[in-house]
């Protein structure tokens, strides 16, 4: 099971070397065996998955192939509405989020043949970067139990890392795809704002929310993105730009690409092993033919803060009823973060929204006139111990949350595509990760550089010792 990728499994299924029922049963057996400890799932769709697997096998037997994911078992963050399954959004309420229409991204994946294994655990209301959840259990890091999985798409990260699922959907408002991908040693892609529909997924912040793939390999992320990207009448923020074939040029290499390593902000107060690993990755990309240089970027600090203001104001608006009627059900840190939004003035919220366009134009002008891509760390430290980020005063925990997501948050404000992928391991065996940032809607170049690095560095062959 742990040797399959979405791509290799999809090919094996189409060639009838393995059946959808066999691989689904294998995933469900791993979930049965490992998830009581990992806590990656909130809902396991065992009967539904087996039923769908039989249907996919029957279709294959009749010569019908739905698409590249035909028969591939996958999982969805428990804020995506999926037919017949509850959507808790990590809260105590089983059916917290009810949507009239299923999540567009899930529907597209299922239409392409994916099998729904279940709904993955997450930080309550997606409000936190560590992956802890007192209601459904703290998601454990597959590489080292007792350490964070990263959040808020914590269960998606752990499920893919521990080979409970071949791929998963995550959402990202301040880093919630990239942080668990980095902590769990897998690939996570936050697409450009407007590239992937958020319809049918619980909103945390309309202005900053993104949905995207979490996979073992860069090629798998490209494959999933190709299925879920594109205009959707149910999400007015989606772009009508054409969706390219992301696998078509993915092996073209990085020769001639200009890759910038930020000279400011992104290496400040970052763990020395992470700094060394990212700089070594830059060196390797240079050896592969990229033109690597340092580049000074417009200060992302204020932008990260402003992104947080938008998120707090919008999240309290979205979840006001829960906060008003059942505040005792919300974990104290999550409640405090929600309540903070009540104090943000309309004037400040609107000023940030007004500033966002000019700030983004300036960032694009300054950075992408010099380079084609940016390369930076994803997390400032390897996955911390769960106890260290869940105990202490609420305001101290919130400050630590802000520090942990300070490298990812600016790109939600900027809406740019960012790929996080493994770039080594710490001395304690925890994954390290880098981010590749591209121009708007240029996921193809981001994925091409990620693929070149992944192939050269070969971290992808390492698996956690989950059994």
């Amino acid at each position: 099971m742990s040797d399959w990728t979405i791509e290799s499994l999809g090919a094996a299924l189409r060639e009838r070397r393995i059946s959808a029922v066999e691989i689904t049963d294998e995933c469900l057996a791993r979930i049965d065996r490992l998830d009581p400890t990992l806590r990656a799932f909130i809902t396991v769709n065992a009967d539904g998955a087996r039923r769908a697997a039989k249907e996919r096998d029957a279709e294959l037997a009749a010569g019908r192939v739905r698409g590249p994911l035909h028969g591939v078992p996958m999982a969805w963050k428990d804020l995506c509405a999926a037919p017949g399954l509850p959507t808790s959004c990590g809260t105590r309420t089983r059916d917290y989020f009810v949507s009239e229409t299923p999540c567009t991204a899930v529907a597209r994946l299922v239409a392409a043949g994916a099998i729904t294994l279940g709904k993955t655990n997450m930080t309550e209301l997606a409000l936190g970067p560590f992956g802890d959840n007192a209601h459904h259990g703290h998601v454990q890091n597959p590489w080292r139990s007792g350490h964070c999985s990263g959040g808020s798409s914590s269960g998606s990260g752990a499920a893919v890392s521990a080979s409970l699922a071949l791929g998963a959907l995550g959402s990202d408002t301040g880093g919630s795809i990239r942080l668990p991908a980095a902590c769990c040693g897998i690939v996570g892609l936050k697409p450009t704002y407007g590239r992937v529909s958020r319809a049918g997924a619980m909103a945390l912040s309309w202005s900053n929310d993104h949905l995207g793939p979490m996979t073992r390999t860069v090629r798998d992320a490209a494959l999933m993105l190709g299925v879920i990207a594109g205009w959707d009448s149910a999400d007015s923020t989606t772009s009508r730009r054409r969706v390219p074939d992301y696998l078509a040029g993915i092996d073209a290499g990085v020769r001639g690409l200009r890759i910038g390593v930020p000279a400011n902000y992104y290496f400040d107060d970052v763990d020395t092993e992470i700094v060394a690993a990212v700089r070594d990755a830059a060196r390797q990309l240079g050896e592969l033919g990229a033109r690597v240089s340092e580049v000074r970027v417009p200060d992302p600090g204020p932008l990260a803060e402003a992104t947080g203001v938008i998120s707090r104001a919008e999240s309290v608006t979205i979840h006001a009823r829960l906060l008003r009627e059942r505040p005792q059900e919300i974990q104290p840190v999550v409640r405090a973060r929600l309540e903070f939004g009540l104090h943000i003035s309309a004037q400040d919220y609107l000023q940030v929204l007004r500033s966002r366009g000019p700030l983004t134009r300036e960032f694009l002008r300054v950075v992408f006139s010099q380079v084609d891509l940016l390369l930076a760390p994803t997390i400032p430290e390897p996955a911390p111990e769960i106890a260290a980020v869940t105990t202490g005063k609420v305001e101290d925990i919130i400050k630590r949350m802000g520090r942990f997501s300070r490298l990812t948050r600016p790109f939600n404000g900027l809406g740019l595509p960012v790929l996080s992928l493994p770039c080594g391991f710490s001395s304690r065996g925890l994954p390290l990760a880098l981010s590749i940032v591209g121009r708007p809607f240029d996921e193809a170049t981001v994925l091409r550089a990620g693929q070149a690095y992944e192939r050269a560095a070969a971290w992808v062959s390492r698996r956690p010792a989950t059994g």
Partner: protein
Amino acid sequence: MNPSSADPSVAAELTRLSDIIARLSRGLSLADEPASFVTVLEEGAPGDE
């Protein structure tokens, strides 16, 4: 910024953020409205369409 919070640490954080927002929004003109953000991104995308 809304000064309604009685908690001193929240009030201090609100003031800090308000100052950052004031600096970020310096230079905005009366004509600046919140832009369609996807349009801003589409303007900055590589020109393949």
